[in-house]
C-alpha cells in the first residue's frame, strides 16, 4: 500500500514540493498521492518526505493505513485536550 492523504490535509503544498517521486498532486478538496508512483521514498530517503514535513496531524497515512503523524505528535498538545476542544466545537 502507498502513502495516503486524508481530509485533514490543509492543501499547503509542503509535501508536494518534497516528494522525490512526483507522486503528490494538487486536488480538491485536498491533495492526493498517486499510489502507483509513491515509492515510500525508499532508495531516496530514510524517512518518507511527505510525512516528515506535513504540519497537520492525521493528514498522512503510512503504508499500513496508520497516521504517520498521530494526534498530539506535532504540536505537543495533549490528546485529551485536543479531543475536548474539538468536542466543544472550539477548534
Amino acid at each position, binding site marked *: 500500500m502507498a502513502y495516503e492523504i486524508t481530509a485533514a490535509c490543509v492543501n499547503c503544498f509542503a509535501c508536494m514540493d518534497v516528494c522525490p517521486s512526483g507522486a503528490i498532486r494538487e486536488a480538491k478538496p485536498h491533495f492526493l498521492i498517486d499510489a502507483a508512483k509513491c515509492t515510500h521514498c525508499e532508495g531516496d530517503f530514510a524517512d518518507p518526505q511527505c510525512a516528515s*514535513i506535513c504540519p497537520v496531524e492525521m493528514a498522512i497515512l503510512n503504508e499500513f493505513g496508520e497516521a504517520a503523524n498521530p494526534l498530539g505528535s506535532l504540536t505537543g498538545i495533549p490528546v485529551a485536550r485536543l479531543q475536548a476542544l474539538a468536542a466543544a466545537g472550539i477548534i
Partner: protein
Amino acid sequence: MELKVLGPATPSEGGCSKGSCGSTDDQMAHLPEHIRERVKNHPCYSEEAHHHYARMHVAVAPACNIQCNYCNRKYDCANESRPGVVSELLTPDQAVKKTLAVAATIPQMTVLGIAGPGDPLANPARTFDTFRQLSDKAPDIKLCVSTNGLTLPDHVEELVKHNIDHVTITINCVDPEVGAKIYPWIFWKNRRIRGVKAAKILIAQQQKGLQMLVERGVLVKVNSVLIPGVNDEHLKEVSRIVKEKGAFLHNVMPLIAEEEHGTYYGVMGQRSPSQSELTALQDACGDMNMMRHCRQCRADAVGLLGEDRGQEFTLDKIDAMEIDYDAAMKKRAEIHQAIEASRDAQRAAQSAKAATATASGLPKGLRSVYMAVASSGQGVVNQHFGHAKEFLVYEASPTGARFIGHRKTDQYCAGDTTCGDAETALQRTIRVLDGCEVVLCSRIGIEPWGHLEDAGILPNGEHAMEPIEEAVMAVYREMFETGQLAPPAFENRSA
C-alpha cells in the same frame, strides 16, 4: 532630498535638547543617510512613511518547513486578521496580476511583500517566480520578503539577484533552550528534527543568513514575537546581537494566542503580553532601532497600514480590470513626488513649531500622559471617534510627544453580534483605551463623550486636522496650565 529633522545619535528620554526628539521619525533619524533614503517611502519600515504610502502582501507561499507554537496552518477565517492568516492563496501569475492592478488603483503603493502563510523561502519556486515577473513588469515597486530563516543562506544570492533590498527574518531567540519552547520541530536535510537540536540548527541558519544579507548590503529587519515567560527577558539579548550583526530595525510584536486559534500557545493558555509589557521591553532594547507601529497585518493585506482594501481586488474583480501599467507608473511617480513635497513642508513646519515649543519650555519632571489619537493617515488628527478602528497612542511629556503604539478596537472579530459577548463596541473601545487620559479625534458624538468621561478619558475634538504631535503637545500644555499635571496631593513633593 534633504531631511530636515534629524534627531540625536541616540535619542534617549530626558537627555535630549533637540526639538525633534520624540518626533515619530526619530526612529529613523539615527540611521545612516543611505538607509534612510531607502526606507523613507516604505510604510512598514518608516513610522512616518506609513501615514502616506501603502503596501500589499500576496500569499503565494503556503508551505512551511518549521512549526512555531503560535501558528496553526489550518486556520483561515474571514473574520480573522492576524499574521499568517490569509483567505486567498494565489499562483505566481495571479499574484503578479493582482500587484499590477493594486499598484495602478492605489498610487500610494510602494511595496510588495511576500510573507506568509508559510515560509516564502520554503517555496522558492513560487516566491521567485513572482519576484522575477514583478521586477520586470513593475520596476518601481520595492520587493520584500519575510522568512523564518531556515533556508535563508541558500537563497541569499537569488534574493540579491531580484533586487530585493529588504528582508525580514523572524528571530525569537538565540538560545536553543529557549528555542525548544517555541519551535516543536523543523524539517531539515530531509528529516523532521525536534527539540533543542532543531532550535540549534534554526538559530544557526538565521544568524548566518542575517550576516550574509548584511554583507551584501541588503537591509534586514528582525521580527520577534514577545512570549511572556518564554522569551521576554531573552529578547533584550536577541536585540543586542542582531544589532551587532547589522540588522537595522527590530520589531517586537505581541504574541496573539486565543484558544480558538488552535495553536499550541492558544490551547495551552499561554498569555499574551500587555501593552505596557510590550512598551517596557521595546524601551529596554533601547540601543536598537525599534519599530513601534507594526500592525501585524494579514498576509494578504492591501492598502495603507491599518486599512485593508483587499476586498476590492479579489480575483474576479482584477480579471475585469484593464491595466495600463506604464501609465499607472507615471501617475504613481507624480503622486509620490507630491507626497514627498507635502511631507517636506509638514516636516519643516513641525520642526519650527517644535523648536518654539521647547524654547518656551515646560518644567522638567512633569508626569507624562498617554493620549489616544484617531487618525486615518497623513499624520494628522482627522478621524471621527466612531469611525476609528484603531487608535495611535502617544506619550506626552516635557520632552515632546512620543509614539508608543497602536490599539485596535476590533482586532479579531467583526463585532459583538458575531462574537456573542454582550460588550458593546463602545465598551470595547473604552477598554482598549485603558491607560489613556485623553482621546483626540476630529469629532465625537455626545453619547460616547459621556461614556468616555465616565471612564476617566477626556475626549477632545478641538485639534481636528492638526498634525498629531502638535495637537498632543497642545493638549499636554493645556493640561499643565490648568493644573491637571500636578501630582496628587498624597504624594510627597520635594519642590
